[in-house]
């Protein structure tokens, strides 16, 4: 039987452990009183359209209600309330959010983690690849600078883009950016693949640098054989990639033997390791997102900000649970 978070655990946690700093790091303190919050108060009572005048009002609410889950939304022209819900208010802004969830990789995860709450190193590396790819694309292609990455508490990573331009993007602009970043659609069923982009050259090169490298570092020789590599070629290709500190698109082309169909290989790379982003989370400007620093009640793990320099070394295993802390 798995442990579940109970009210007593939460009381202890909120009284002495719960830290507001990660939340403040994500949303800042300006306009706090106009920000929407939402909470899962008990198993089937969800309440949104809540706002708080001050941080201590927020904290008092938490201590009184002991919510199972905590979420934060957008800023409106006034603080939302039960009688003045967000539908009636004017939307002001919202950090630009991305969500990578390993659920979306179920059809290509080779481990046995499917559908369960655990994550193993194999499949976590997919989320890491996605976060690193996202980080570089948002910085270089879009020029964003103020990014934070957050472990969702279960098997996903959230990215918060906090640049001024990003906060004011409307839903159409947000969905254009997520389309730019998307190469696989209907990822839980038919997994339709797009062609590797011709004109978005930086994105294209990044697929060959980052995703291809990671593909060869994680692929089995048997899978390469299925793509047309002869056994000795498969071994050589993997060794070649391992030997390159910096992997370039030119290196990539050298990795593919002449008689192998390059398109088949590039499709396998995209299918196997290209980031799978949850589109609605990004394009919905009124969406609520889990509060950094709060507990994920399904796992007991803390939703944790990941140091941007440590994305590569971060492992969910190192994240404490509520029971470790109380």
């Amino acid at each position: 039987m798995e442990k579940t978070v109970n009210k007593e655990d939460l009381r202890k946690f909120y009284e002495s452990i719960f830290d507001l700093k990660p939340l403040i790091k994500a949303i800042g303190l300006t306009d706090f009183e106009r920000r929407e919050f939402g909470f899962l108060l008990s198993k089937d009572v969800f309440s949104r359209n809540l706002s708080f005048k001050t941080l201590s009002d927020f904290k008092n609410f938490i201590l009184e209600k002991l919510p199972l889950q905590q979420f934060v939304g957008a800023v409106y022209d006034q603080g939302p309330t039960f009688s003045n819900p967000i539908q009636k208010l004017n939307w002001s802004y919202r950090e630009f959010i991305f969500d990578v969830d390993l659920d979306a990789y179920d059809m290509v995860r080779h481990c046995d983690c499917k559908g369960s709450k655990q994550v193993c190193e194999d499949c976590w590396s997919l989320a890491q690849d996605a976060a690193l790819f996202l980080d570089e694309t948002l910085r270089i292609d879009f020029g964003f600078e103020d990014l934070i990455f957050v472990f969702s508490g279960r098997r996903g990573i959230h990215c918060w883009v906090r640049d001024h331009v990003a906060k004011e993007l409307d839903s159409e602009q947000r969905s254009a950016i997520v389309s730019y970043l998307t190469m696989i659609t209907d990822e839980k069923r038919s997994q339709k693949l797009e062609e590797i982009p011709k004109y978005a050259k930086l994105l294209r090169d990044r697929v060959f640098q980052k995703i291809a490298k990671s593909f060869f570092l994680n692929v089995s020789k048997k899978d390469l054989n299925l793509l047309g590599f002869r056994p000795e070629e498969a071994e050589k290709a993997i060794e070649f990639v391992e030997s390159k500190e910096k992997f370039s698109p030119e290196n990539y082309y050298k990795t593919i033997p002449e008689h192998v169909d390059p398109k088949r290989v590039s499709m396998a790379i995209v299918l196997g390791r290209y980031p799978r982003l949850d589109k609605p989370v990004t394009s919905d400007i009124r969406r609520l997102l889990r509060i950094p620093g709060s507990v994920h009640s399904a796992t007991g793990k803390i939703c944790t900000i990941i140091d941007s320099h440590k994305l590569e070394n971060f492992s969910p295993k190192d994240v404490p649970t509520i029971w470790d802390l109380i």
Partner: protein
Amino acid sequence: MGSSEGVILPDWFLLKHVSGLDFDPEAWVGLADERIERFSRRERWLLRRSSAVFEDEWLLLVKREFAGHVLLRLAVSEDERLASWLVENEGDLFEYRFRAALNKEKLQVMRFLFGKDKMLSINDLEKVLGEENILKRFGLYTPSRVRHFRSGIEESSGYVAIYFTDVPDVIGSKRALLYKGWAIAPLFVFFGSIKRKFEALLREKIKKLQDRVAGEPALQEKLKAIRDKLRKIAKKYSSDFGFEPGEIPSGTPLFNRVDLMPPCMQELIMILSKKGHLEHGERFQLGLFLKRLGMSLEDQLRFWYDQAVDNIGLNYEEFTRKVEYIIRHLYGLEGSKIDYSPPKCKTIAESYFCTFAHKDPEEVEKTVLSMIRLRSGEEKTLKNYENFIAKIKSDMVSGKPVLACKTAFHLVFDKPLKHLSHPLQWFYQAAKKEGLLEEKNNKEK
């Protein structure tokens, strides 16, 4: 004539400010009326000064053009359907003139539409970023890429940079190089965004007139005749489609979503990719459909060129002669210069290609299965599948192709389709089911 924020705008650009235009609704009614007539004939015309025209004459001509346009803005301001009709027609006219304009004029218009700090030449971009040789560094200076299409290439193969927030459709379809927030591409890549921006600004201007017109009963009286005329035209126009056009959101390029297209279009695309070409009428049917989904002329040329060249080794000259002319024709840029609308189901069943009117009922199950596969990645069993197929076949046998098509929609999308008289309705309902288009409910005023 007038300039705006230091940008000198060409006279054909109707969003510019014209000085010395004395508001005179009575005198302008005739001009507005003439404009409606031209639009309803789908006529597109240039406003270009020839050297033989004296300054005074020219100014008068320009004023008459603006007067007719401005009065129409006022006349449609209180009725969203009429406004859509006007915005779409003015948008098409703008596009026609923009394509015909000199490169210098194009850049001026773009600076006005996007703002001077959001639309830069590559030189200026390099200054802003403090970097050099941006095109070369990214391997972008390759005129061979655009050599394929003669259409205005000499004038518009030059690269420009537009800030990403203003060109979501180009970003979403990965059609530009994106660097530090700047979409860098040959000018023609942005044609669709430019037109949309024009339409959005015109829409805004029309909206601002609402209160003015509402507060002036005398003016309303003067606009009455024009409005009645417009209502008649707009009514016919929207009943052709069953929805209000001009609402295709950019960002997600819908024309790539073959799985949301009606069976006839899916089959035409399949035939095209197998055979490399289509019959004239079928080309017309598919081309206009794609155009209406927001595919630009350049994208269509690329689409048809890819299909043709990959399959039958048609060389570029042949392509130009056989296909490009016809596609340009669809955009009203060749021949009779009529900007056509895609045909309705009834017309398709009568004289183009309709799956349920022209295929053998025994063959049709294959088509339906391939649609299901395209949507779900597998030939899965759907609820009441056998009943649906039997119904489709019997509708076909009794000569009711549209009914059969509605049943196919119900089967594939698990949702009944209320109205179907145009292939775009199928697509719009499918896109709504996918959450790509918003359901229009109680529009806020």
